């Protein structure tokens, strides 16, 4: 039974991690707390839903489209909103993204109402596989595997490509990066885009089994903040492990203490870890 609970938690955890990786990029690199991160995810889910509803393309297959679209959304948000407040006092940027989150959420309701939307007859069904005496839902498994794959892809991008290393260099020392010939404005735009791409992908992975409505992403967004802080700012590997820890804690907490208290367990873990390691488990 515990094994089953842990598996369930891990499957969720991989998806949490991918959402958190996106948040970690902007938070860790640019020191911008993007409160609209959850709304990026929301728009990704609506995007995937409408592509399915209008042309019948399954959300899993529209993943590349959502990656590109939410990447563009991220870049636009950077250029239109974030760039202007980057050099202002920290609180300004915070309020700007908070306002942005309100605007995006209300626009969602304005365009598509507060009704729940569901993708029916998805490509991968919600039937379970039986493995070593445990039941694993196929759609969760595919989402988790996809999320893990994409997280590894982002990690590889950050470590191995010139742009990825430039993003890290910019996060360590912006002025030194400029002195290397790095256009930090462009790097920031790419980072915001990449952050969007992560949630665009996560949205497509989840859209088949998650009810879609304007408040759908509040939980993911809150958990993403906890995961980033727990894993260590700007640390992608940290976000992956913290995502798994939170996923398992949530599942175990729900089982051992009661479903209504599962997030209490999550936040207690967070508070304890932050006391001992203020920069997170894998923080610099």
């Amino acid at each position, binding site marked *: 039974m515990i094994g089953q609970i842990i598996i369930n938690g891990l499957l969720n955890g991989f998806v949490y991690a991918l959402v958190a990786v996106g948040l970690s990029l902007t938070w860790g690199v640019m020191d911008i707390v993007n409160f609209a991160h959850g709304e990026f995810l929301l728009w990704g889910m609506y995007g995937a839903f409408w592509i399915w509803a209008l042309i019948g393309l399954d959300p899993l297959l529209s993943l590349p489209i959502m990656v590109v679209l939410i990447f563009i959304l991220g870049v636009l948000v950077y250029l239109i909103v974030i760039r202007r407040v980057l050099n202002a006092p920290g609180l300004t940027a915070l309020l700007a993204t908070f306002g942005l989150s309100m605007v995006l959420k209300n626009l969602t309701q304005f365009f598509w109402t507060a009704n729940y939307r569901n993708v029916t007859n998805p490509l991968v069904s919600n039937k379970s596989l039986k493995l070593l005496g445990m039941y694993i839902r196929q759609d969760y498994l595919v989402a988790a595997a996809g999320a893990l794959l994409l997280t590894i892809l982002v990690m590889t991008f950050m470590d191995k490509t010139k742009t990825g290393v430039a993003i890290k260099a910019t996060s360590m020392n912006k002025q*030194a990066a400029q002195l290397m010939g790095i256009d930090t404005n462009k790097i920031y735009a790419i980072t915001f885009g990449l952050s969007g791409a992560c949630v665009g992908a996560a949205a497509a992975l989840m859209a088949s089994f998650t009810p879609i409505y304007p408040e759908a992403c509040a939980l993911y967004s809150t958990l993403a903040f906890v995961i980033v802080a727990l894993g260590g700012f700007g640390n992608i590997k940290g976000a992956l492990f913290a995502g798994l820890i939170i996923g398992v804690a949530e599942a175990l907490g729900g089982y051992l203490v009661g479903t209504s208290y599962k997030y209490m367990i999550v936040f207690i873990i967070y508070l304890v870890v932050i006391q001992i390691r203020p920069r997170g488990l894998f923080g610099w």
Partner: protein
Amino acid sequence: MLKATDLRLGYDGVPVIFDVSLEIHEGEVVSIVGSNGAGKSTILRGLSGLIRPMGGKIEFMGQDITKVPAHKLVEMGIAHVPEGRQLFGKLSVRENLMMGAYTLKNEADKKDALESVYHLFPRLKEREGQAAETFSGGEQQMLAIARGLMSKPKLLMIDEMSLGLAPVLVEKVMASLKEIRATGITVLIVEQKVKEALELADRGYVLATGRILTSGTSAELLESDIVKKAYLGM
């Protein structure tokens, strides 16, 4: 090669450099000397585009670069090794160097640049996988200079390279400048160690409270009363 005319620089609207004019010719080693707080670093920050001049004009290779941002100047051939090294601490030596070569377009150039800095500082090659922050002060300074050289600059500007280094290391790093110069790179150094800097340079400018006090060949300056009294304690 580089010419600044009536340059006025400052922070948040408050000027700290007043109408400074200076010129650097191709192949020279020029030093700006002066005590702590004279505004030496601010001049370099202005020349490399990190801060935008409040007045005056900067020309590089005949082009007006007064308003060109820092990252574009690297491409044009200006490298600035900032005060306090400003390395990318978590990145490896090699990654730091490759960031230095960010503006180089083709792989052959990058490889060539890497080989020449490894030749200049063999120690860096031995430890290329190590994170920059684990280095000692002297090694970090070598890495900072090497990183500056990776963009294959025409003009290399180095800020306070002696700061925090033991005398034996200062000599070592200064000696590497002679080798750099021999490869045809023009060098501008900013130093608090007036005597050492002037001995290394062809010409110098003496800066005090944001203004040029005097300038001339290094030999002239070392013999001048102003330098002897104020900086050499003679």
